[in-house]
């Protein structure tokens, strides 16, 4: 499964898939080191109390795929009946995972249908609607990982100065959706007076990304300017759909 994960990441970053292993043996952690050697995927120890394998009605060596709302997909893959030593079986599994991660946006508003279904119970919610009146429309809330129904959850961009080199560089830190999310574009723009904004994305480089595992489907990224900005400016991040 590590190979499957690595190949998916190498081939196509637009389909973001997480793969986790679960120890079938619920009361024996003895062989966990053997299962995790040379692998960096999470390896979860099931327990008699949690009894995840029965909760999910799993069979030994089943691969259970969940959609973004944690609903099980119809087709299960089994590593015993479909040995991953065969390239054809690896391609079948990768196809199942890619299919589960395909971006679906029936109303073409740039927002994944599952996200609209989760928050609004419908998919035909206008992208420019600001349901919680916090000043951020749905596309921004989706792109920056905030709650569109809570005015306390406001998408934010933290602007700072890096002192790591002689000339201070501007840093912008914000949440970004994992994968290509159907083609969302994140533009970094600058303005001197707050009226005319100029795209400065090419002047910034990704400095750091941090996974949050908080159920938002986002990561926290920090972009740093490649050089010093000689004039004081304001900065913002715009989220645009493809």
């Amino acid at each position: 499964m590590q190979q499957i994960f690595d190949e998916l990441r190498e081939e196509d970053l637009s389909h973001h898939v997480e793969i986790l292993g679960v120890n079938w043996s619920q009361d024996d952690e003895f062989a966990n080191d053997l299962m995790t050697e040379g692998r960096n995927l999470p390896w979860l120890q099931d327990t008699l109390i949690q009894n995840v394998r029965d909760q999910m009605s799993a069979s030994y060596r089943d691969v259970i795929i969940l959609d973004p709302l944690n609903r099980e997909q119809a087709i299960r893959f089994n590593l015993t009946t479909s040995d991953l030593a065969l390239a054809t079986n690896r391609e079948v599994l990768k196809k199942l995972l890619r299919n589960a991660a395909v971006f679906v946006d029936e109303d073409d508003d740039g927002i994944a249908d599952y996200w609209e279904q989760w928050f609004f119970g419908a998919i035909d919610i206008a992208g420019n609607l600001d349901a919680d009146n916090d000043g951020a429309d749905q596309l921004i809330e989706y792109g920056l990982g905030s709650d569109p129904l809570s005015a306390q959850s406001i998408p934010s961009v933290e602007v700072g100065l890096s002192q790591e080199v002689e000339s201070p560089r501007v840093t912008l830190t914000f949440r970004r959706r994992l994968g290509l999310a159907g083609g969302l574009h994140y533009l970094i723009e600058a303005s001197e007076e707050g009226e005319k904004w100029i795209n400065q994305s090419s002047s910034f480089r990704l400095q750091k990304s941090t996974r949050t595992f908080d159920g938002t489907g986002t990561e926290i990224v920090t972009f740093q300017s490649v050089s010093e900005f000689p004039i004081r400016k304001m900065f913002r991040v715009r989220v645009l759909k493809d």
Partner: protein
Amino acid sequence: MLRGSLSFLMMAILPVFSVEPVSEFVLQDKNQTSIRFEQDVSPSDYRHLVSAYYFGQAS
């Protein structure tokens, strides 16, 4: 229009098996080289992402 049609076709090929999400659970990550080593891991951590769980053991 084509994009919407393609999306509908993909959904027909791989329909969701369950209307309800899987039950929540909490298990600890035992892989020392995993980014989540020693953390409590739950399905809700991966909401808004596609996740896959494989059940195995050393033999």
